């Protein structure tokens, strides 16, 4: 398995970095945001051609089958250029679910090939909150009810919906343009949007049913949580680089501000925080590749997200402070990183939430 192989991961990192830099780096994120806040479908296809989307899908199902640690490498590179493409969402959620539940379904190939993007609608306002708890109903090939916090709803071709069927949870697939399906967009800090979906007798295809849906959902969410942590690590890495460049060149009192000790010490603290986060998150991803117990995997993912959010919050906010007034302008890229960090931090649970989950799991393990 690739995840333990140092050199292969390095090569993967280099090729992903080149691909994103060639496409325009973080400048591309700004353009897309200004153009309306979705991603570039061409870029999705280009990433697919490089094998990126199928990184964790087994080879027999058309992917690369090289594990979550490799997925983390890609996620870090996505984070570095704050690419709006639904990479982590596709690897972790849509393909994460389908490869576990229905690996032979034709949609798999379209997802891996970047021809289709599917957003996962699993949460509901007021529902229990556990994966698989749903009031939205699925019966006779139709969905009725509503789903909340659907990331990527705006640019997706369709939705994977976790609903309540006659005999427990169902995973259903519906098209974005299907009858009776409406999307209420909530604009996010980075210009992307999250969707509130409502269905009334919307035609949908059942992909899987029963407790397997719940189990696969738990696993897919753990994977995605850890991958989102890696995306945050990449984001922080680049935000720190930008800030370091800035304090080396910005002069006040006839000196670069980076020559002042108070600035230097703050920069060091951010650097230390970044290195700890990078080491912690990479270790988690490698361990998740070897771990089969879903409870342990969920706890590991919580550790990663708690660490990544703590670090990113501190790094992006201090980065703005170290930029001074220009840090508060839209013109400077550092603000794009802060805004993207806000969105990624809130997605699938922030640091406080995941510390609570991690601690709870630790207590349960101790009691067992």
């Amino acid at each position, binding site marked *: 398995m690739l995840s333990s192989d140092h050199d292969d991961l390095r090569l993967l990192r280099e090729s992903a970095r080149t691909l994103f830099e060639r496409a325009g780096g973080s400048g591309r994120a700004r353009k897309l945001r200004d153009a309306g806040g979705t991603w570039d479908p061409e870029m999705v296809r280009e990433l697919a051609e490089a094998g990126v989307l199928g990184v964790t899908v087994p080879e027999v199902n058309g992917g690369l089958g090289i594990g979550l640690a490799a997925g983390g490498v890609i996620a870090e590179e996505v984070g570095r250029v704050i690419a709006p493409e639904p990479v982590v969402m596709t690897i972790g959620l849509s393909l994460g679910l389908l490869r576990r539940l229905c690996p032979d379904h034709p949609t798999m190939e379209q997802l891996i090939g970047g021809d289709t993007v599917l957003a996962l609608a699993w949460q509901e306002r007021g529902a229990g909150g556990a994966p698989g708890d749903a009031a939205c109903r699925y019966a006779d090939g139709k969905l009725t009810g509503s789903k909340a916090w659907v990331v990527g709803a705006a640019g997706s071709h369709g939705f994977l919906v976790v609903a309540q069927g006659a005999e427990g949870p169902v995973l259903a697939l519906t098209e974005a343009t299907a009858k009776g399906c409406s999307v209420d967009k909530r604009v996010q800090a980075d210009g992307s949007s999250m969707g509130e979906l409502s269905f009334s007798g919307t035609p949908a295809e059942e992909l899987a049913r029963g407790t397997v849906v719940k189990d696969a959902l738990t696993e897919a969410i753990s994977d995605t949580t850890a991958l989102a942590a890696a995306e945050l690590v990449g984001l922080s890495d680049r935000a720190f680089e930008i800030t*370091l460049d800035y*304090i*080396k060149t910005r002069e006040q009192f006839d*000196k*670069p501000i*980076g*020559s002042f*000790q108070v*600035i*230097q*010490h703050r*920069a*060091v*603290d951010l*650097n*230390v925080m970044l*290195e*700890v*986060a990078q*080491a*912690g998150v*990479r*270790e988690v991803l490698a361990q998740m590749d070897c771990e089969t117990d879903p409870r342990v995997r969920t706890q590991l993912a919580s*550790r990663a997200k*708690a*660490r990544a959010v703590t670090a990113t919050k501190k790094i992006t906010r201090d980065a703005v402070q170290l930029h001074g007034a220009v840090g508060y302008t839209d013109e400077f890229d550092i603000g794009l990183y802060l805004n993207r960090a806000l969105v990624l931090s809130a997605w699938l649970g922030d640091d*406080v939430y995941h*510390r*609570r989950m*991690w*601690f709870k799991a*630790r*207590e349960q393990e101790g009691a067992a």
Partner: protein
Amino acid sequence: MADWNTMSDAEFRKEVRRFFETEYPEELCHLPHRPKFAEIEHWHRKLHAKGWVAPAWPAEYGGMGLNAAKLLIFYEEQQRWGVNRGRDMGVQMVGPLIIKFGTQQQKDYWLPRILSCEDIWCQGYSESGAGSDLASLRTRAGIDGDEFVINGQKIWTTMAHDATHIFMLVRTGPGAPKKQQGISFLLAPMDQPGVDVRPIRTLAGENEFCEVFFDNARTPCENLVGELNKGWTMAKALLSFERIFIGSPSLAQNALGQLESFARCRGAFDDPVFCDRFAQAALDVEDHAALYARFADQLKRGETLGADVSMLKIWVTECFQRITELMIEAAGPDGGTISPLQIGNVSVDVLASFYKARPTTIYGGSNEIQRNILSKAVLGLPG
């Protein structure tokens, strides 16, 4: 003698662990204070008989000859079991310097005496005007016939009141263009009229370190190690391994374990605020261990560590302090009590760990100095 380096890591760890667990006296585990030699002499004899006093020294000088990977394991196991490092200044500091820069005669004379603890060493580096800015040191040594004559004073000299010898950095070439030049590395006996040792009482109420005054103290010229006026570079050359060791996770890990058992007895985990802070500390320790493993892997691959290794020390010492502060919070009204608290079958000396954590951000290059180093050597910040 066994070639430890050919053993697998797991096998070696098992062997070291077995020895510590069966041979190290339980009442000396995790000693809250630095012991005088008499207190640990019995253990030192066992270690000496086993040939394990100097794990890092080459076998030809009576050491274990461990490579970096094995050495880390040795220290990890030592800290895990709470084995006191003993009076190891000789083994850790003087010995390696003599091995690297000393004459054959110096090696033959001093090294066996270090191993047997016939000589017990203390380190004379810091002065009241030369702490973080060590190169400003002013204690001077002039040559008189075949002896150096030493005048000045050293401070923060750990356990000087229980040492027979001192190794020191002294100024032998005053007026050199840079303050790092003109410094030499000298060995001197403590038991002589010109040396006066005054213990300093610490916040914890212990006499751990001392002031040492030199008033025409003497040491033979043959006790100069390395070249005259080249002591600074020599002393610095030895710090590379020290820097990962000082950033190892053990101290924080042990404190966390102690905090957890104590907090359970106190019912502190019923408080969600405490739970979050505990989780924060526990995750700080886990993720630090991941970073530590990255540096340790570098050593195991035979690479030299860069200046960035200092970040381990910054993170872990500050984390260690937070953990011991949480311990005080969990103690509530007992948070100011100096003696061990007995709760159920757990005995915890709350303040002992708090005090133990305080100097960790000061010694070995204060954390502020470490930040200066990182900002220049790693981040490339100017000035």
